[in-house]
């Protein structure tokens, strides 16, 4: 059970950038997507998030066609678009899209603001924030509706070391508390060891290894060994 990718292929300008024959990402755990630049990590995540259409293949989630759970999935990139509105309104947006009660929206947004320690930002316009602050707001916004699946592309790309710890512990606790399936695209091997249960290693658009994180601490393949050593 989980997210099953079957024969997913994506072609850009005649070049195959993604070719995943068979991959099953387990539910309720944190899976890291590791690999060098241009290995197809973001393309694969965008296809899972339904932001890109593959040339062929299908995605099945717990035996169902994937589009049935689209409402419960979200994708956050390191430069996610924030609305030209206050931080509060940005975090409240997904709940307003779902037409939740005002009292619930207020309670939930306050919870997230407290969780990410961004109380001092709540009335600020989101466009005036620093890169790291924006990253925290987009993550808080993505979590507002308790998604079943959370896909994060470089979650700590713009964040200073103090907050990396906060983001990582938040993701861990969300996974433990709500059993959220989390997929993290990262270059940072140490971070993937800290956060993830399993790791998918990609190269040239293909999955070359998918194993428990312990395996990657002393991998067999020379290329992965070198990547882990350098990152």
């Amino acid at each position: 059970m989980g997210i099953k990718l079957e024969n997913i292929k994506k072609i850009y300008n005649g070049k195959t950038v993604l070719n995943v024959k068979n991959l099953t990402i387990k539910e309720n755990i944190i899976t890291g997507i590791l690999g060098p630049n241009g290995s197809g990590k973001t393309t694969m995540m965008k296809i899972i998030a339904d932001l890109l259409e593959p040339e062929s293949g299908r995605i099945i989630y717990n035996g169902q066609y994937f589009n049935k759970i689209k409402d419960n999935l979200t994708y956050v990139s390191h430069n996610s678009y924030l609305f030209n509105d206050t931080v509060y309104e940005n975090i409240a947006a997904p709940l307003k899209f779902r037409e939740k009660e005002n009292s619930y929206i207020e309670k939930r947004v306050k919870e997230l603001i407290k969780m990410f320690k961004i109380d001092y930002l709540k009335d600020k316009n989101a466009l005036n924030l620093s890169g790291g602050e924006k990253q925290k707001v987009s993550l808080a916004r993505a979590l507002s509706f308790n998604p079943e699946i959370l896909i994060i592309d470089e979650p700590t790309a713009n964040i200073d070391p103090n907050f990396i710890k906060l983001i990582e512990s938040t993701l861990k606790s969300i996974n433990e508390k709500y059993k959220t399936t989390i997929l993290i695209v990262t270059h940072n091997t140490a971070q993937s060891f800290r956060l993830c249960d399993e790791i998918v290693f990609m190269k040239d658009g293909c999955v070359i290894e998918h194993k428990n994180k312990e395996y990657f601490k002393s991998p067999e393949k020379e290329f992965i060994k070198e990547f882990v050593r350098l990152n």
Partner: protein
Amino acid sequence: MEYILEGVEGAFKLIFSFDREIYSIVLLSIYVSFASTIISAFIGVPLGLLTGIKDFRGKTTLSKIYYTAMGLPPVVVGLVTVLIISRSGPLGSVGLIYTPTAMIIAQSLLVTPIITGIVFTNSKDTGREIIEICKTLGANRKHTFIKLIKELKPLILVATVTGFGRAISEVGAVMIVGGNIKGHTRVMTTFIAMSNSMGNYDTSIAMGIILLTISFISNSFLYNRTMGDNNGYKIRKY
């Protein structure tokens, strides 16, 4: 030099004399330009948004057509409009030639590509980003559309005010289709052109000052709505 100073002095006297003819010309100019801008915005904003955000075959060709149309020569637009609405033209029986309606049509033809082009160019990336983020946050079509308009409001205002600026300062097309008839189709720009050729510099300068003032007011409105920080809003850099 002296005649310029005399012209400026005469202009201020004319402005503060509240001359009925001058102010009726100003009102007609505002009416024609405003009407044509509204019509152009209603066509240009959705067209620019739709073609900007969607990917389709021929998009590059379409963008070239938009950019060409943005620089249409006003006299050519005036000429085409006259050929269509003149008595012997296909719409001759409607009797639009030398009327404010004809001027509105000609200005709409000039302003629509400007609004469409500005919205198209600037919504290509930002618009797609907004739609993408709305999708990942679970917005339906209605919510996505509302967010899109709200987020692109500064851009839509910039396009509309630029269109209005083009309309109110345009002379070639309105001269051809309107005929600069006193009390009927005479607007500020055609009045300035005529007064200048007659050597009436004071009235030309007076009208020029009013034209600049209107332009300043419309641009101030734009500035306040997009760059002002009264409500904490800031324009996103497109």
